[in-house]
């Protein structure tokens, strides 16, 4: 049995090599995103299923691949 070896994360080194930005291309900052999420949560009940239990119960999908 071969000796177990934990491969080290090599990401930071690789990133330095190429100089590629790690941050996703989104230019929105964390706080801005959080504010947007708060706004969304304020209004989301208007679009959510009124009877969540009934909707979840009735959603049955047989015969799929």
């Amino acid at each position, binding site marked *: 049995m071969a000796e177990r070896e*934990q491969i080290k*994360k090599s990401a930071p080194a690789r990133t330095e090599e190429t100089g590629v930005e*790690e941050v996703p*291309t989104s230019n929105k900052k964390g706080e801005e995103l959080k504010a947007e999420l708060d706004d969304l949560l304020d209004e989301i009940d208007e679009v*959510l299923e009124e009877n*969540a239990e009934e909707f*979840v119960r009735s959603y049955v999908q047989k015969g*799929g691949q």
Partner: protein
Amino acid sequence: MAIVKVLGMETEFGIIIRGSADPNPIAASSTLINAYVAELSRRVAWDFEDESPGRDARGFAREGSMPPEVETHLVNAVLTNGARYYVDHAHPEYSTPECSNVYEVIRYDKAGELILADSIQAASRALPPGQSLVVLKNNSDGKGNSYGTHENYLMDRSVPFSRIVSHVMPHFVSRQIFTGAGKVGSEAPSTGRDPIEFQITQRADFFEEEVGLETTLKRPIVNTRDEPHCDAHKYRRLHVIVGDANMSEVANFLKMGTTALVLSMIEDDWFARANRDFSMQSPVAAMRRVSYDLSLSEPLEMADGRTMTALEMQWEHLDLAKKYSEVVGLDAVGGEDIGQDILRRWEQTLGALESDPMSLAQQLDWVAKYRLIGAYRDRHGLSWQDHKLAAMDLQYHDINPARSLFARLGMERMLDSDEVRRSVSEPPETTRAYFRGKCLQRWASAIAAANWDSVVFDLGGDPLRRVPMMEPLRGTRAHVEELLGSVSSPAELLERLGS
């Protein structure tokens, strides 16, 4: 050299009728699609002559395994964008036309969402008052029933299937960290661990085998359906059933782009040439372990005794792909520009997953869903078993833009909205789908049937005339635009083609 990865996607959508005592999904699917095609000028039937879904890529005929059904009596239409839109089992299914690069295939997948949304509107005029259709682009009903989103990749027939299996399986297991569409809870039998509150993918709960022909039970990670829909001596169509339906354009781009690249590397035997092998001890169990591990730190046992996390496996795959791009090039995935886009996005995503997965809330479906549902749960002090959260999980995938939670999240776009809308009716220009779509636009009434590899004309009186299209990259705009422009009737077209 790896051949150009012609790409396609097939999506089975979830569907229910609200306000009906008999929510028959087959009837609902038929109503939906009939309403759409009734609004098009004329429906063209699909031709089943060349369908053989029971053929097995490993070279033996099926024996004791259930052949997938082909239901010829259900609604089935070919659209002018080259796609197929039909009732499959109890679901509406949309298959994109053949596409020649990743941007194109995710554009036609997104166009499919518009087609379904248009269908819902058309159907609402046909349904009795008080009834409406809900259509979801997801892969699970939350009760142990799954339905698929399948990917298709054109491959060179000369590549041994066993090599494809060995090297694509570790990618299928580990890519889940960015392809997953997220799911509240688990539908797998008891895991012997704490209840799963939220997991990365919709589909991981449903895979029980490593390799096989089935698609509806005992689903395999690598599906062996061998039905190329083109010249079977030259090509294989790898039929991938292991992925999630993506709402996010970025996740869809990564799913199709990285897999096309890995398959090109396999065709060029790049893993062996680089002396790399990521074969795993238990890939089936690893599917779920990766999906259940939101910390992305689960160590997975490799066949050679090492352990790696899915994230580490993906870094290694990226590393190999970069070297491949330098030595072999990126022609197989749409050329240098598109190939570099795939590599760049792949690297950015792995970097962000490593430093802070939540920073990808505008890029990846599972992160967006987890963040939204998690925040709602915190605000209202709900348990993970609350029906409200299960309903939100479903509603994230709603095709109706007025109800879709995904649509409210302002996720990053990679596609141009106008081009997506155009792709509802216009075919891709760089594959045989162009010929199919353009013929349907001009001469639908003279076309008796169409399928992936032929168009059948009925000119009245004469026998039906079949135009074969056995080469996916022939019949493109560059090949046939001039010809189509120079003829004024299908009879003239057939004469010029010598059919």
